[in-house]
C-alpha cells in the first residue's frame, strides 16, 4: 500500500446516519409547523427596500417637465467607471442643457457619486431593482428614459444624521 493511510475506527453510534437523519427531519417538521414562514410570494408580493438602496437612475424634472440637468459635466467627471456620456449645448434661451445624456446602467457600479456631486439635484439613483431587458442596448438609458422613471429616489444619507454619526 503506497504511503501510510491511517484507518480510524469510529464507534457505531457516531458512524450511523439514522440519528442524524432523524435530527434533520425534526428540524424540517418544526419549520413546517412554525407560524413565521419566510417564503415571499414574488412577484405578487414585493420586497420593501431600504430608503438608501442604490439602483438604476432617475432624472428629476422641473414643473414644466424639463430635466433639471444643467449639463455641468461633474457626473461624467466623477464617475469612476465612465458610464455617463454628456454633450452640453445651448438652448434657445441661452441656457446650458444636456443635448445628449446617457447612462450605461450595465457598466454602472451604483456608487452614487453622480447623485452626490450634482449641484442641482437632478440625477439620482433609484430605489429599484427590477431591470430585466431583452437587449444590452436597452441598458443605455437616455435622458428621456431617465425622466420617465417613476420609482423612489435613493436617500444617500439620513437627513437627520447627514454625517452618519
Amino acid at each position: 500500500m503506497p504511503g501510510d493511510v491511517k484507518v480510524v475506527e469510529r464507534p457505531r453510534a457516531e458512524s450511523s446516519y439514522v440519528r442524524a437523519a432523524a435530527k434533520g427531519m425534526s428540524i424540517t417538521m418544526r419549520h413546517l409547523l412554525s407560524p413565521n414562514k419566510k417564503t415571499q410570494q414574488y412577484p405578487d408580493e414585493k420586497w420593501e427596500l431600504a430608503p438608501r438602496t442604490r439602483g438604476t437612475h432617475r432624472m428629476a424634472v422641473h414643473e414644466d417637465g424639463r430635466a433639471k440637468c444643467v449639463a455641468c459635466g461633474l457626473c461624467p467627471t466623477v464617475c469612476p467607471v465612465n458610464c455617463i456620456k454628456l454633450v452640453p449645448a445651448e438652448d434657445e434661451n441661452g441656457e446650458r442643457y444636456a443635448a445628449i445624456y446617457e447612462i450605461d446602467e450595465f457598466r454602472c457600479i451604483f456608487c452614487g457619486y453622480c447623485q452626490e456631486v450634482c449641484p442641482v439635484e437632478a440625477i439620482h439613483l433609484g430605489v429599484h431593482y427590477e431591470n430585466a431587458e431583452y437587449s444590452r442596448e436597452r441598458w443605455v438609458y437616455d435622458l428621456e428614459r431617465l425622466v420617465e422613471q417613476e420609482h423612489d429616489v435613493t436617500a444617500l444619507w439620513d437627513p437627520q444624521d447627514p454625517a452618519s454619526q
Partner: protein
Amino acid sequence: MAENGANAMVTLTIDGVEVTVPSGTRVIEAAEHVGVVVPRYCYHPGIPTRPAQCRMCLVEVEGRPKLEPSCTLQAADDMVVNTASDTARTARQSVIEFLLVNHPLDCPICDAAGQCMLQDYAYVTNQLESRVDEPKRIMGRDRISEDILYFADRCVICTRCVRFMRDVAEDDSLIVAQRGDKAYIDTFPGRELDNPFQGNIVDVCPVGALVHEDFVFKARAWDMDATASVCPGCPTGCNVTIDTKENQIVRVKPRHNAAVNSWWMCDYGRGHLVMTNRGVRAEVPLIRDGERLKPVDWPTALDWVAEKIDALGSPGGSAVVSPDASNENLFYVHRLLDRLGVAGAAFRVPQGETAALPTVPTLKLRADRAANVAGAELFGGRRVDDLPDGPAAGGSTADGAAGGVLVVLDDELEGAGEGFGGSAGFFLYLGTRLPGAARNADAVLPIATFAEMDGTFTNFEGRVQRFHQALRPPGLARPGWMVLSRALARLGDGEAVNEVRGAFERMAAETPAFAGLTWDGIGLKGIPVAGSAAAAVGVAASPEAGA
C-alpha cells in the same frame, strides 16, 4: 531709475527669501522669481497700465504703515516684503468676500470653472460662506461683439479687457459703464467692437465673464488636453496652445513668446486653426490600377512607389509643394526631388488682408496666408502665382515632354485643369485631402496635418519653432516625413524615421541653414536659423529657448 543707471540691480527679501532683480522691477514680478505668485486680477504682464484697482495683490512691507499693491510697488534695496502675513491675508479675503457679494456662483455652468482666478482665490482664502443676506444684483448677459459674449454677473471689473483694447490694441471702443456694483463692461455708445485682435480680451479675462461664442458650453477645463503649437495662419508663427477634446480642436490660446507674439494672437489665426482639421480627408494610400486608384496598405504602397521611382531613374519634371508643409516634410520632399532630377519645387501662397497690433511690432497678421513660406524658400522652392504649366503638369505643352515626374506635396491644386498631371510619367500626390485634380495621380499618399504631428515651421524672420501633435491623424494618414523617409529608405537613401527627432536631426545635418540646431535646443520658444533676420537682431531670445 535714471540715477541708478540702466543696469542697476536691487536686492530685497520676499517671504524670507532674498532675491536680486533689475531696478524698476515691480514687487509682484520679483516675487515670481522666488516662486511666490501674489494673487492678482487687474495686473497682467502683457498690459502696460497698472491701475492697482483690484486690491488683490496687497502685500505687507516692513516699515510701512499700510499694505501696498505689489503690482505698482517698485522693488528697492533692503525692502522686506511679506506676501502672506495675517494683515495681507485678511485684506485679500475681504476683497474676495466683496467680489462674491454679487457673484452668481454659477461655476457648474461657467466655462471658466477650473481655470478661474476667482474660484482659485475663493478656495485659497477659504472664503466658503457668505455673510450677505441681501439679494444679489442680476444683470444678465450681453453680446459685446459679433462673437464674444459678456456675462456681466461674473465680472470682477478688473478692466484687463478695457486696458488691452485701449493700451495694447489702441482701440477705444471698450469702456466700463456705470459705477460701483452697477459697473459693467460695454462698447462705447455708437461704437462697435470689431478689432482684428479682440479675441485676446477673452484670454486676459481672469474669470468667466468674457467667453468666445464658439467655445461657450463646449468643454470643461479638465476635459481638455493642451498642446504647445504654432499658429499656421500666416508666416508670423504666433506661439499657441491648442486645447483639444475627443480628437477635436475646441479652443486656441496664445502662448507667451517675447520674440514673436508677446502674449497675443489675432482672431484670424484662432478661427483658421480651429477649422484646420475639418473637412473630408485622405485616409488610405491609393495606387494606380489601370483606370482606377486602388486602396492598399502602407508597405504595399511604398514598395510600389519605390519600385516605380527606381525604374524611372532621374527623368526631371516638376513639383508643387504647399507653403504650409513643415520643414521636415519640405526637406524630405526635396531629397526625393534631387533623386528624381527635379530642380526645386514651385509653391503658391494665398493672400489676405493684413492687420497689425500697434504696440507689438513683431505681431502682424501678414498678407501671406501660409505658415512656412520662409521654410519653403529656404529649401530651394520657387514662389509662383499659378500652377506650373510645364511639361509634366498637363499644360498646353504637355505632349512635348511626357515622361517627366510630377510630385505634389499637400497643395490642393485649385485651378488645375481636367488633365492636370495626365501626361506625367509618374504623378505622386502626397496630401491631407484628396482634391479632384489628383484624379490622374499614380499614387496618393495620405499625410497628417500640422496638428496631427510633431515638426517645425520657419517663421517670417527665420525663427525655427516647434509644434507638437495635438490630434490623432485620421485613418492611415501619417506624417509626411515619416512617409517620405520610408520611401527614400527603400531607395537606399537614409533610414526610415519613426519620430520627428530623427527627421529633424537629419535635416539639420544636411541643410546648411539649420546647421547646429537640435530638436531639444529649439525648445518651445524657437531659435533663429543661421543668416536670418531674427539671428541678425541678436541672440537675445536664445536664453529662454529651453524654457
